[in-house]
């Protein structure tokens, strides 16, 4: 793991810029934020994320936090969860939310795959390459977790309907005794074909306010 000095100087920033594609100023802003979140420590733990006040009312908070501690999102062919992340990993995760540059028409497909992979990994908690019904139900549960008076049944119904939709779009005809194991990444790509994620899953890093006052 990239062991960093407490305040990386310009050379490290350049290195990170090449790895992640962020600009120097973006890295600097993110680093300030990183240190703020980690109370000037070198690493971030789950607790640090849990203590972000704005995140508290996000229904999929736990999934977002898990995504930061998932080796699959570090672009390093790793697997499984980690306990703490350094700034480099933090940047790596963040870089999934970077806007594609305008001239990347031919790269669009790859950007799309990458972004969808990130979401797919968020759903696929047990890391077996498919989103099973149980996992999908969990996603819906989380998504609806802030509405109090809903039974689990509604979430289940939605997940079932969604799963049926996947099955019917990816497999044209299924015999009743065939078994649909779950959503593979290919299904996932096909499923969200009309969903222009490359245009949607973007955060405006360049216009970031100084993150100091918003704790």
């Amino acid at each position: 793991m990239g062991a960093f000095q407490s305040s990386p100087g310009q050379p490290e920033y350049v290195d990170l810029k090449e790895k992640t594609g962020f600009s120097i100023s973006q890295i600097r802003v993110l680093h300030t934020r990183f240190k703020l979140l980690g109370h000037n420590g070198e690493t971030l733990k789950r607790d640090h994320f849990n203590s972000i006040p704005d995140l508290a009312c996000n229904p999929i908070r736990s999934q977002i936090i898990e995504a930061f501690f998932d080796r699959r999102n570090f672009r390093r062919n790793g697997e499984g969860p980690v306990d703490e992340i350094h700034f480099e990993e933090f940047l790596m995760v963040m870089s999934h939310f970077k806007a594609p540059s305008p001239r990347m028409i031919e790269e669009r497909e790859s950007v799309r795959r990458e972004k969808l992979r990130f979401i797919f990994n968020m759903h696929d908690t047990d890391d077996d390459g498919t989103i099973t019904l149980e996992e999908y139900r969990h996603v819906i549960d989380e998504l609806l977790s802030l509405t109090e008076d809903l039974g689990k049944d509604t979430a289940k119904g939605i997940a079932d309907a969604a799963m049926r939709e996947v099955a019917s779009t990816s497999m044209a005809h299924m015999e009743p005794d065939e078994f649909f194991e779950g959503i593979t990444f290919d299904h996932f790509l096909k499923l969200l074909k009309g969903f222009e994620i490359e245009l949607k899953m973007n955060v405006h890093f360049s216009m970031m306010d100084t993150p100091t006052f918003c704790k």
Partner: protein
Amino acid sequence: MAELQPARCWRTGFFFCLLLFLSVASGSLVVVSGSNETSGGPAGDTPEDPHHQTNSTTHKKAFPVLSFNYQDVRKPFVISLWILLALLMKLGHRAVMILIGWLNLSFTESLAALRLICSVQLLLTRAGPTSCPNALLDNKEPSVTHVVSSRHETQGLHDGFHIIPNISNVVPESCLLIGVGLLVGGIIKAIGEEAPVLDTKLFFHYLLPPIILDAGYFLPIQAFMENMGTILVFAVVGTLWNVFFIGGMIFAVCQIEGVQLAGVDLLSCLLFGSIVSAVDPVAVLAVFEEIQINELLHILVFGESLLNDAVTVVLYHLFEEFSHAGTVTVLDGVLGVVCFFVVSLGGVMVGAIYGLLGAFTSRFTTHTRVIEPLFVFLYSYMAYLSAEVFHLSGIMSLIACGVMMRPYVEANVSHKSYTTIKYFLKMWSSVSETLIFIFLGVSTVAGPHAWNWTFVISTVILCLVSRVLGVIGLTCIINKFRIVKLTKKDQFIVAYGGLRGAIAFSLGFLLTDNERKNMFLTAIITVIFFTVFVQGMTIRPLVELLAVKKKKESKPSINEEIHTQFLGHLLTGIEDICGHYGHHHWKDKLNRFNKAYLKKWLIAGERSTEPQLISFYNKMEMKQAMMLVESGSAAKLPSILPSVSMQNIQQRGSGNRRAIPSISKSREQEIRKILRSNLQKTRQRLRSYSRHDLMIDPFEDNVSEIRFRKQRVEMERRMSHYLTVPTNRQETPSVRKVCFEPEHQVFTYDNSESPRDPRARPDPGPLDAISLVSESQGPNQSREPRAKVPEEQEEQDQLKLSRCLSDPGPNQEEDLS
């Protein structure tokens, strides 16, 4: 071609009916016009018609058995005739060709049909335009000319309609309608009447609001908000740039010697610029709806055309004021800026207040469903008028009202009222759009023109140049702030889509009369015609040539909805982690505020707490249910209803049921009612014209008989498969499947069901089972091919019974394990 057959069939049938109706109507028209002529001819004084008529026939004061009094009803009669004409034209440009082709009408027959239209127009000219009734009072044209000219025009019309089939693919509807307007205007002029002009009051009070309300109510709010910054820049800065560039350059042109324009001062040039530079929502809508461009570009151009209204209004009033006063001070400029904010924000405020009121009212309409839609229309119209009272931006007020009202109203009103609202909005906007374009054509013929080559040509060129320069310059700035940059293609389409339209014309018409007004009007009309005809016609080929992304065919997909929600929360989360208060952050805050306060006040009953995902899900379920019933059997539409049942997905025999228990009793009742009412009228729906489609029925478009039969076979195959499933299969006995089967089959499965793995079963109690059946009864029932069920209730009871028997309760299961 095969799949076109049924559509064409009924369409021609429909048109034939219309023709029949028209012939009857025209009979009366002939009577009307005939008597009008006979009485009007000799007497020469129309207001005395009735007396004259009765006197001349009886000569005694006997009781008039049949009296005639056209004057009393003339105005509404004329109005309805205009609307009828508008509708016929809308219908005509597509249906007439099919009619002629299919019926193989003989020349005389089609001539007769066209003569009907002519007589409508004739009557119009006799009765006169709605806007200037005074002109008609002295209607003394001898009847001979009428006949002659009608013959003549009939011929012309006939030729016109024969050309239409060939060009209607190339020419947008707006152009055709303007053409029709020109024709009608020509007829009117040829007869020697005074043609009606696009009266400003009529336009702003009656014709414009429906279109804007329709646009505002169905505004894709998500896309609009996401691109708000860009739209605002284009609408405000872009329009300002256009006004000053065009105004300044026109002034410069006027200074050139030898063009006889020396008398035009700078202020009137700027005034002219402010009229001619605003993009027109009506024209943009008409053209962009047809080319089906992607949502981003559509909302950019359309949003700009909506929001630049405030700028135009302010600048127009400002320059008009100045050109009267003659001097401009710095203070005036400052006041102008303040005025802009007052006009735009004030308009939005007024609209939002009325919108909230409307939403609040709709909360209490549970017992008077019939008048629900009217509230929406009235509140919006009031918002528009109230804004106009203070010279605020009426358009922005309408938009704000529609946007504000929609989510709450939709949650409150019944399904039928919702459809009614949709239908009425579409109907009104469609009629007024047609009327606007026809009137535009008519008033072009009517209006006094002062053609000045230099002025007109330089105006057209300047409009194009300033639009291109403005878009390119502004995108340079905007792209620095946008996440998704605007490409060169996008810029081109945005620049090219800057169509001018009827608003500019009406504003130009408001100018104070002087020798410049006619010249300005002519130039404005030329610009409008140039943009609508040249740009409107070429934009479609250009879009195809440049391979600009088209609008995607949107099928409601629950997965996409899930991921929209998911992504929203994810991005909010990431922004929060970054400590960056961006777009998603504020959207989230707004949503939360909405949920916490507004929804509780404005939405009645249980739906107020319903998250978006669930309401989407419910809506989808309902739609599927309706489609199923309408199509008669599920075999036809595998694309809509997933052909895969839960048994293919479920791991074990566990919860393989469709759990939609959260649908409330009332909702269930609603679904059931719709199902029942739709059962009777399965296939007699009318297909409406494309832009105003109410419900996009994907299956209706491409269902051919062959495909239908194929699906049938497929379904039967599947059914037989069900029937031959070995009884000892343990994995996949499903409740769902049981529901499909005829009753006696249930028991066969019952046997196979018992030895299934009980551990994973989340104890479906008997109660659960019952509710499940009644639930699944809605969407699923008609999957069963034999279920052409008018007696739902009976069947439901049977099913319920069989389910109770077939589904073992939890106790039984424990015993088994």
